[in-house]
């Protein structure tokens, strides 16, 4: 990462921290503490399953909300407030700005996820009194959640580069919901024939495969996550996010800042 990209990334991270985005962790901590105590009282033998399910779903949901609501303003807010003028009048390329913003928000989400992950493990420890080696698969699930955030962040940036914040939020959230059911879409495409097969298949390929990145239920049931799945998901995410960022850069490069 060059110095200009890292300067923009660290400024984006600082903005999120100073705008008290990480305060969401308080809400998450309350949720996890409440869940751990309540689950310990009402469930028998499945406390861990419930805590992992609830904890990882909350990590995912909190992170996606942050990724969308900060991501949609990353470019449009800088244009509206004209802070971008003093950045782009310097030796900063537009692609460096987009990349810096992406890394800044990704960094914020990673820090946020690490804090929430600690909360999930504490809640697990509270209900089971002891962590086991197999619990390491929770880390894989958390890693996949971070991969989801990278895709959501890149999509929010893409929409932010040409659309208003409200529309960007709607688009990004819609793509997230559809992407979460992309497995069903692929199954549907497989069951079709002719033109509808190709249309459904094309949609399934374009929409991000969030369902493939969701192993929460598998991990909660104590199943291990295969190494090749980790590699495949990593490669898929990096490729998908890179393509979306390229599209964002192409649009932003052509944009007149009125």
């Amino acid at each position, binding site marked *: 990462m060059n110095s*200009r990209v890292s300067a923009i990334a660290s400024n984006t991270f600082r903005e999120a921290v100073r705008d008290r985005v990480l305060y969401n962790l308080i809400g998450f901590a309350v949720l996890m503490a409440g869940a751990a105590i309540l689950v310990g009282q009402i469930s028998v033998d499945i406390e861990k399953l419930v805590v992992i399910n609830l904890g990882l779903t909350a990590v995912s949901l909190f992170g996606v909300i942050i990724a969308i609501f900060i991501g949609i303003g990353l470019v449009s807010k800088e244009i509206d407030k004209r*802070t971008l*003028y003093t950045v782009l009048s310097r030796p900063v390329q537009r692609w460096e700005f987009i990349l810096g913003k992406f890394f800044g928000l990704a960094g914020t989400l990673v820090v946020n996820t690490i804090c929430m992950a600690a909360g999930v493990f504490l809640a697990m420890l509270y209900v089971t009194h002891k962590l086991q080696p197999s619990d390491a698969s929770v880390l894989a699930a958390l890693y996949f959640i971070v991969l989801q955030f990278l895709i959501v962040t890149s999509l929010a940036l893409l929409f932010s580069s040409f659309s208003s914040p409200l529309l960007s939020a709607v688009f990004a959230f819609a793509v997230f919901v559809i992407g979460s059911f992309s497995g069903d879409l692929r199954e549907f495409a497989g069951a079709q024939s002719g033109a509808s097969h190709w249309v459904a298949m094309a949609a399934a390929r374009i929409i991000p495969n969030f369902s493939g990145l969701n192993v929460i239920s598998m991990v909660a049931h104590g199943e291990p996550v295969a190494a090749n799945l980790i590699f495949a998901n990593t490669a898929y995410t990096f490729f998908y996010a890179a393509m979306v960022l390229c599209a964002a850069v192409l649009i932003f490069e052509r944009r007149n800042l009125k």
Partner: protein
Amino acid sequence: MSAIEILGIEKTYSVGFWRKRPKCALKPLHLQVEEGEVFGFLGPNGAGKTTTLKLLMGLMYPTAGTAKILGMEIGDPRMKAQIGFLPEQPYFYDYLTAAELLNYYGRLSGVPAKELPQRIAAVLDRVGLAANGDVQLRKFSKGMLQRAGIAQAILHDPKVIFLDEPMSGLDPMGRREVRDLMSQLKQEGKTVFFSTHILSDAEALCDRVGVIYQGELRAVGSVADLTAKVHGKTELTWQGAIPASLKALSADAKVNGDTARIVIDEAQLDSTIDTLRRERCRLISVNPVRGTLEEYFLQHMNSSNPGSAPLPKSKNIESSQGASA
């Protein structure tokens, strides 16, 4: 080599939702600004000043034409490392302190990390914010923000500085400070290109000015050259009273002791002198009155566009009195 060379740059927008139609924001503009020059870009609001600056900064793309700054194409990162820019009514990241803001911009401009702390301290001192370096910008007044804006524009010691309405919104004291700073920059050999609609600032600071109106550059020259083109007025002083026929001629007729004074249009000079001779007044002096940029503006902008509504002086062009009020 010219510091700024604008070669027929122009900008046309598409307006309308269903039926797009072109709207010309800037007609082909040809202009050269020499190194070390302070150049004022004058025009009423909406004349095309900010559009020109945005095109030069690479924030907008021209429909046609190009420009060179320090001999390099606009958009060239090497060129951008040598220019500073203050946008109109700047807004900065208000969660940062002034020192953090300058540190951020310094890093973006490629200032070596070792030099940054000294540069930041020096530039904060220069713009009068030395005591506010660790204050968040959200607590700054408008004048302080403008100073922070100037600080970021000169932090990396650029050769050419572009300022868009640098005195806008400042109180008289703030305007004076910005003027002094611009004079210092000129003494340091910097090229300063600034847009303004406050004519007294241009008169006080500029080596040359360019006048833009409705997206078209109407005149370029020194302030003296332009004001010489103002349809002249003449001041006459004489001993004696003001004849009744002259009182109606000008509202500027005044008597001070036994001396009378009147300011009239040049065209009325001969007939006025004839009147004074007839009344046996002793003529003391006949002096041409130097026109102001404001008068130039009002005469030429309105006359060059007879079909349009005249420029409302108080709204579009601020004279020195209007601006300080």
